């Protein structure tokens, strides 16, 4: 998580630019390798329950969070590991949470779908599709009322376009000019159904009908995401009203870790295409090398470090104790 201050309109300082995009690369790699470990834990039956992997969509979370400040808020989804990490959470406590350990972000009570962290402005992942649209908008309301200059970002999948409450809160956000950005991660599928079968009309049209400033961006291009997000965040922070960002992306894995046989709803070719041609990490790596910001070795080094970090984090989580049973009755009331 950087405190991004650059303005896409202004000519950027090359050194800080380089730092920013290397950081973005590192963040994407960390997310990818985090998810690798998650899948491993699941496959080895070491993780309770299921998890929804973010691999393939890294540029969205990272691009958006690189446009945010530490104190800005986010809300996240069932597919939330990427948002958490991009906003600054540490993998050890995340893995601990995924394993239901006391050292986890939620003392083990939340699990994969409910990681929350006040220190990084993470209001929480949400297992209800569209369940956090009100929460993010409310955080933006409070930010505006308290005048603390914060912005709230609401991440959701394109499946949440089916939830009416999204339209209720977009209307309110626009009426009240709230500093909120709705980020629609369009990865083409609502679970096992292609979004075109569930989505009439147009996505941007829906946000624009409520007066929101809305843009679509290539969600595999971290720089494009970051620039679009920064524009909308800057606008929102300045009191000019909410924004809506559709990021077109793809999830490499199944809907959840257990969704292995996917051919009845999408082809191997399609998956192959995205992985080989549209991978956000590879695309960004090429760009970094082309720009002379990095070479293969330095990028490899980033991956080595990130993998080591994740392995350590998993070790920490595996060794950490479960909460003791009496804790089950704690935290019901504040």
């Amino acid at each position, binding site marked *: 998580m950087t405190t991004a201050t650059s303005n896409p309109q202004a000519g950027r300082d090359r050194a800080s630019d380089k730092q920013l995009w290397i950081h973005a690369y590192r963040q994407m790699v960390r997310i990818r390798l985090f998810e690798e470990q998650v899948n491993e834990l699941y496959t080895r039956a070491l993780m309770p329950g299921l998890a929804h992997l973010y691999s393939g969509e890294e540029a969205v979370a990272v691009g958006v969070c690189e446009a945010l400040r530490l104190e800005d808020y986010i809300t996240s989804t069932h597919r939330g590991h990427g948002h958490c990490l991009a906003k600054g959470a540490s993998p050890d406590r995340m893995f601990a949470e995924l394993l239901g350990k006391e050292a986890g*972000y939620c003392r083990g009570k939340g699990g994969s779908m409910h990681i929350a962290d006040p220190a990084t402005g993470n209001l929480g992942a949400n297992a209800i599709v569209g369940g956090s649209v009100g929460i993010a908008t409310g955080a933006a309301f409070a930010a505006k009322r308290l005048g603390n200059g914060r912005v709230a970002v609401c991440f959701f999948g394109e499946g949440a376009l089916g939830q009416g409450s999204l339209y209720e809160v977009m209307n309110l956000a626009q009426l009240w000019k709230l500093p909120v950005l709705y980020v629609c991660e369009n990865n083409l599928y609502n679970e096992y159904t292609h979004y075109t079968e569930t989505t009439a009309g147009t996505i941007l049209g829906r946000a624009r009908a409520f007066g929101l400033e809305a843009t679509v961006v290539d969600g595999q291009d971290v720089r494009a995401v970051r620039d679009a997000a920064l524009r909308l965040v800057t606008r929102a922070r300045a009191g000019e009203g909410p924004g809506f960002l559709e990021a077109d992306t793809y999830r490499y894995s199944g809907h959840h870790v257990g969704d292995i046989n996917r051919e009845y709803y999408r082809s191997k070719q399609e998956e192959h295409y995205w992985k080989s041609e549209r991978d956000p990490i590879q695309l960004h790596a090429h760009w970094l090398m082309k720009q002379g910001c990095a070479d293969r070795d330095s990028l490899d080094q980033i991956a080595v470090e990130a993998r080591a970090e994740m392995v350590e984090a998993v070790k920490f989580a595996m060794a950490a104790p479960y909460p003791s049973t009496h804790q089950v009755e704690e935290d019901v009331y504040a």
Partner: protein
Amino acid sequence: MPERELTFAQAVREALAEEMRHDPRVCIFGEDVAEAGTPFKVLSGLVEEFGPERLIDTPISEAGFTGIAVGAAMTGLRPVVDIMFGDFVTLAMDQMVNQAAKIHYMSGGHWRVPMVLRTTLGATRRSAAQHSQSLHAWFSHIPGLKVVLPSTPYDAKGLLKAAIRDENPVVFFEDKMMYKLKGPVPAEDYAIPLGVAEVKRSGDDITLVATSSMVQVALGAANLLEKQSISAEVIDPRTTWPLDEAAILASAKKTSRVIVLDEGYGRYGVASEIAAVIAEGAFYDLDAPVKRMGAMQVPIPFSPPLEDATVPTEETVCAAARAMCKHQL
């Protein structure tokens, strides 16, 4: 000095005004809460003092603005949400139950949701089935929520202040037929802790556990019973969660006969929970089965003679109490 009297609506308004004065984080979201002061006029005058920045008129988006209140509560405000009729909470159940009630727990205690949802309950207003329900049992069922049911102007003010100061999501039900009820309300600041029942009338022969407007019905019934030499105790839990089981059991053990009165449906409702608590906790002291009285198990009809038949009245309660005591006296 004569006691000051306020109506129930005035007591609610005063509680809100005092809390808004003393805590700038308190704000109110709802439909027509500002200039109109709500259709029940409960909030009249507040916008003049606190401005439209704090009395926030919303579109007819119960899910939307309740969700916004949840987020605002997490991030530094103390919102009070106004849901005009209790029937409309059906539209905000995800926000209250999946979100507000669980966020503190799911986050391992890291986030808090200090908000109040005020709404109404109660029939006999000739408003028919979609404007007459008393759905407080649903919220009472959900861990993470507190549920308040004031029965007098005094309680309304003191309990609402406590609810606003509470660190948890609290659902506050006002019987819309009680807004004009008058009663003494001191001018000084006071709050009534959530979870403390009150004996509204002391008696020996039978206990009437009653909530919300049924407290008034119970008190009326107790007067009728007195004329028939039956001494009824009326106890008001005031909150269904936390529930003051000790106070209720003490009264049940004292009188050994109990009727539980609640305006919601009895079936799978508040009266059944309280009856079960008493039947379990005062098992060896009861002289008769605990009787439950609540709304008749029908959608509330519009037609006046039908609607009137759906709710317990002083007379039906008195008759039930007499029948229970006759057996035993």
